[in-house]
């Protein structure tokens, strides 16, 4: 290939301008902001008001705890479900494939607001879920006013929304496994279940780790669900996540410095957990 710097930048510049202005510069700026006291009229360097406060703020600790709790429960459940879904949907003997794919993949196109509104209504104290529970002889649950139940609603909603998305990715991974591997195993008399555990899962590992990383990053910035479904992190602050906490600090209290410190914490955690996942994935090879 010839060196074509001028031509290359002619094609690249329009995008680079947007990329630098609205992505790279804000990333750097945000870091600087996280050291500023933005509560006074003149923003002054004062990390004690941001990073210092982070260490002792119980509201931050609560949001961090809630986020990690959702992460630890929701991500594994969803990925396991998505893997099973992908394998089942990939089965050659499946009938009505289009219908099943629609059922599980459709949530991918549903917007956060629409589905949040719907889940809020479904799990309303007088909503259809409770009516069905009562009809089945169980007691109704105060879904949105009990802290644990509210957390469960968030997790259920997230799983409904994202399991299909991950299944699509895993399905793509499954379809890249050559058929003859399974044929060889079948000839060797390996059962279907064993094929899943000894062939499918190991070969899918990179894809599954990718899904975990994507989900972790998504969960770290969870915002719309607690904002809309559980009414701004309610009851009390039982479902307040880091994303919601940042929103309240940044755009409720307009404390940009503190919110930036939270933003960088979210980023650092997301990167750390992703790297941990990648490392764990490599370790067992």
């Amino acid at each position: 290939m010839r060196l074509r710097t001028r031509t290359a930048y002619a094609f690249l510049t329009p995008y680079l301008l947007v990329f630098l202005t609205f992505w790279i510069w804000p990333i750097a700026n945000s870091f600087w902001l996280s050291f500023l006291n933005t509560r006074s009229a003149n923003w002054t360097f004062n990390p004690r008001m941001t990073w210092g406060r982070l260490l002792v703020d119980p509201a931050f600790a609560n949001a961090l705890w809630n986020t990690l709790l959702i992460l630890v429960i929701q991500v594994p459940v969803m990925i396991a479900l998505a893997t099973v879904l992908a394998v089942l949907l990939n089965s050659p003997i499946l009938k009505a494939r289009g219908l099943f794919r629609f059922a599980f993949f459709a949530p991918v196109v549903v917007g956060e607001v629409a589905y949040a509104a719907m889940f809020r209504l479904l799990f309303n104290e007088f909503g259809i879920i409770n009516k069905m529970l009562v009809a089945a002889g169980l007691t109704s649950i105060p879904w949105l006013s009990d802290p644990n139940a509210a957390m469960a609603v968030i997790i259920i909603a997230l799983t409904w929304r994202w399991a299909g998305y991950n299944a699509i990715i895993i399905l793509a991974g499954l379809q890249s496994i050559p058929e003859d591997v399974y044929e060889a195993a079948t000839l060797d008399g390996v059962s279907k279940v064993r094929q899943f555990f000894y062939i499918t899962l190991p070969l899918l590992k990179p894809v599954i780790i990718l899904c975990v990383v994507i989900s972790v990053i998504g969960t770290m910035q969870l915002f719309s669900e607690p904002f809309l479904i559980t009414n701004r992190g309610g009851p009390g602050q039982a479902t307040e996540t880091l994303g919601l906490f940042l929103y309240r600090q940044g755009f409720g209290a307009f404390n940009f410095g503190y919110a930036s410190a939270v933003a960088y914490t979210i980023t650092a955690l997301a990167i750390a957990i992703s790297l941990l996942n990648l490392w764990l994935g490599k370790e067992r090879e």
Partner: protein
Amino acid sequence: MRSKSSAERRRGIALHAALFPLALIWLFPLWMMFVFSTLPENGIFSRDIILTPSDQFVENFNLLESDTGFIRATTISILVAAAYTVLSVALTSMAGWSLACYRFAGKGVVLATILGTLTLPYFVVVIPQFIMVARDFGLHNTLFALIVPPLFNSLGVLFMRQTFSMMPHELFDAARVEGVKEWRIFLFIGLPLARPAVAALSIILFLHSWNNYLWPLLINSKPAMMTAPVALGSLIGLTKVSWGGIMTGAVMLTAPMLVLFVALQRHFVAGISAGAVK
């Protein structure tokens, strides 16, 4: 003809027995969204379990329209999503072409910067972006604020770069030898051959913009400039508001995307799996 073994038949039954109820559970919320949008208010909160639609959709939508200017908000959403998609496809495919087809000074740095910051959470930029657009530029509550800042998304760049790299470069060399200008090679050979990728990317970008919530919520808070999701979200949690109306809004946000999804499932799936596999 080979007859199916009984073991295979049993596996088939087990497979469908496991998937069918799960599929019903998954479809339930979407179905109920539709049902609720057609029920009168006292139907949604009645003591009976109502699983079939009624006929109050138009009445509910009128309630929504009086609660918030939903038609205007939807118009803004369509405008924004269309403009965003066209601009983003144009910018990212040009950038992807550049990174796939040329050797140039600084290429490594550009690529490393894009890849290295790809997975950073959006929250890390939202505050400076807000300060810049709202305070420094004074452009909050404008279409510009909704369309331009989100164009930074680099997924399209990587996707298009990969698409162009996988094409046989002899095609472009052949045109070069014939004296065809680079931008014409891009326009008349590269892009036409990338049509399936452009389709997949457009769909994903449109969906992304259509459903975008946080940034429009922050930057366009004036009711007259709200997008449809923000307008709808602003009603959630209010006390004197029609839930049937909110559900008609949810249906109107969701139904077009579901239709698109059914019609173009292949492109959706391609876009999502490509977006994930970097």
